[in-house]
């Protein structure tokens, strides 16, 4: 079912395209040797190039270019062997050059495609229009002084990739899924850390609405949205605003807007009418970027297995459902953890434990997959203890909680606490006999056809054995004795 918003005049379709700005992982900046690390003291990571001192010349960082190419390859996109840097001219206090070096006419990466997966299990392809490299600007701090803004140029000149999608997105859910998928691919590739709180990944959201079958109507650009949730909210509230404008007899004006998450609304940035006259022209300080096909092929050969391929492999190799495989591959570290648990074991049981008890423990303890509450090896050992009938599934949950709490290995906990499963048929028979003797009426009811009571007997026997009875043997003994 296609997503629509019901207006007074009937259903409206939402059309969305995203421009995602992703900060490139590199040691030094796009055109200078200053560091890129986050959180350094103000202006400590600024070269004369980044501060635009007269006569300073930019020299491109080979690794930043490689990162853009890797990203293009990960987005199944065309790599342009010849691209060019242009100047995008505008004045702002945190842009010392008075222009941003960007790529306008000839981006380094052309059209590609990203596949997203939706809650109903369907998939959809979102087209990538282009990816280009550009410089980030500095940071302005407006709230420290009544009449002044403070400028920190540490971020000035850090390499950014702007990834532009086609207007293929049709709902808030699709917009969210696209950003998540893009983030996952970038993190797998190691080309952007995807940290939206620190601003390493931020999105400009282009939204328009239309009636089914119409051509596109005027769009608005919602700038600098910095979380997946906000992207989804921005799509919805901006679409609702535009529907109200159209249905009120007005006309949506093309403009740049800001999303205010506190008020749940977008508002106009009241930009001056010529703010968008960037007067691009080729940067005379830089020659065209000319790549060799062999170098690109080398980068391609060194790419890691990406989420889509890994998901397909988890489905075929481990027999996982598409959903479970999707959850496990979203983060590379999670996929690695899962494979550590699953290798040589029952992969479906491993997947259930990782996505169930393990994720729950991780959330509860506030730990991360990089610093997990239980290691993959220890969780694997726990599964082994179940597989060889040392403990049953119910006791395994208890052991797991003890592992989270104490950090001890599963075997040690089982021994310490005497949790070893009872497979001694003598002991099981004795417990079964006792339960039967204590509940003559239930036995009679069961024998007269109330099959459902079987669970009652199993429960009581297990209780009598402190949960340690081997479930299969308990079942067998009960079946035999109850007749």
């Amino acid at each position, binding site marked *: 079912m296609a997503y629509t918003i019901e207006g007074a005049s009937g259903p409206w379709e939402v059309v969305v395209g995203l421009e995602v700005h992703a900060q490139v992982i590199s040691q*030094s900046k796009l055109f200078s040797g200053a560091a890129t690390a986050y959180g350094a003291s103000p202006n400590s990571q600024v070269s004369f190039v980044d501060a635009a001192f007269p006569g300073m010349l930019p020299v491109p960082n080979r690794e930043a270019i490689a990162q853009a190419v890797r990203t293009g390859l990960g987005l199944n996109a065309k790599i342009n062997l010849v691209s060019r840097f242009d100047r995008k001219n505008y004045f702002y206090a945190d842009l010392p050059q008075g222009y941003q070096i960007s790529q306008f006419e000839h981006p380094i990466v052309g059209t590609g495609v990203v596949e997203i997966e939706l809650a109903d299990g369907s998939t959809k392809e979102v087209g990538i229009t282009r990816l280009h490299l550009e410089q980030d600007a500095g940071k302005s701090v407006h709230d420290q002084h009544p009449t002044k803004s403070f400028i920190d140029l540490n971020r000035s000149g850090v390499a950014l990739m702007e990834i532009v999608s086609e207007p293929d997105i049709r709902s808030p859910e699709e917009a969210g899924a696209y950003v998540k998928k893009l983030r996952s691919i970038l993190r797998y590739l190691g080309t952007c850390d995807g940290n939206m709180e620190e601003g390493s990944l931020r999105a400009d959201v282009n939204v328009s609405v239309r009636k089914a079958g119409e051509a596109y109507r005027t769009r608005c650009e919602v700038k600098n949205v910095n979380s997946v949730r906000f992207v989804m909210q921005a799509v919805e509230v901006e679409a609702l605003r535009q529907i109200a404008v159209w249905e009120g007899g007005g006309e949506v004006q093309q403009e740049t807007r800001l999303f205010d998450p506190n008020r749940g609304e977008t508002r106009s940035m009241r930009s001056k009418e010529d703010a968008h*006259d960037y007067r691009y022209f080729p940067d005379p300080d830089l*020659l065209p970027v000319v790549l060799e096909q062999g170098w690109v092929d080398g980068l391609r050969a060194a790419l890691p297995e990406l989420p889509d391929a890994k998901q397909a492999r988890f489905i075929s190799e481990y027999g996982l459902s598409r959903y479970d495989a999707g959850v496990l591959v979203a983060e590379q570290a999670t996929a690695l953890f899962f494979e550590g648990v699953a290798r040589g074991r029952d992969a479906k049981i491993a997947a259930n434990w990782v996505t169930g008890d393990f994720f729950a423990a991780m959330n509860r303890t506030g730990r991360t997959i990089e610093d997990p509450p239980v290691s993959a090896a220890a969780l694997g050992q726990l599964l082994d203890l179940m597989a060889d009938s040392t403990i049953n599934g119910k006791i395994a949950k208890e052991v797991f909680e003890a592992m989270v709490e104490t950090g001890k290995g599963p075997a040690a906990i089982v021994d310490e606490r005497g949790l070893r499963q009872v497979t001694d048929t003598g002991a099981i028979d004795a417990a079964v006999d006792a339960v039967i003797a204590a509940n003559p009426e239930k036995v009679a009811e069961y024998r007269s056809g109330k099959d459902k009571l079987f669970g009652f007997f199993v429960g009581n026997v297990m209780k009598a054995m402190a949960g340690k009875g081997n479930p299969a043997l308990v079942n067998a003994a009960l079946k035999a004795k109850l007749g």
Partner: protein
Amino acid sequence: MSLDPATVRRIAKLARIRVDEAQVEALRTDLNSILGWIEQLNEVDVTGVEPLTGGTQMALRLREDVVNDGGIADAVLGNAPDRNGEYFAVPKVVE
């Protein structure tokens, strides 16, 4: 092609150059003669000639990804008309 006074004022504004009304006509004449000269260049037939960026046939020089610059906040801030600690201070620019 001929510029009108409004376009001259707009170009000045985009370049953040203050132009007195009295200067507009003289600038308009200057700019028009520059444009006239470029129009002359446009008469050259460049069919089949690749556009050239930069004046040389050299390959673009690339840098290795190493940190070998920065850590010079005082020098970077040295010419700033105003500063606050390690920050540049500028007239408030928030909208």
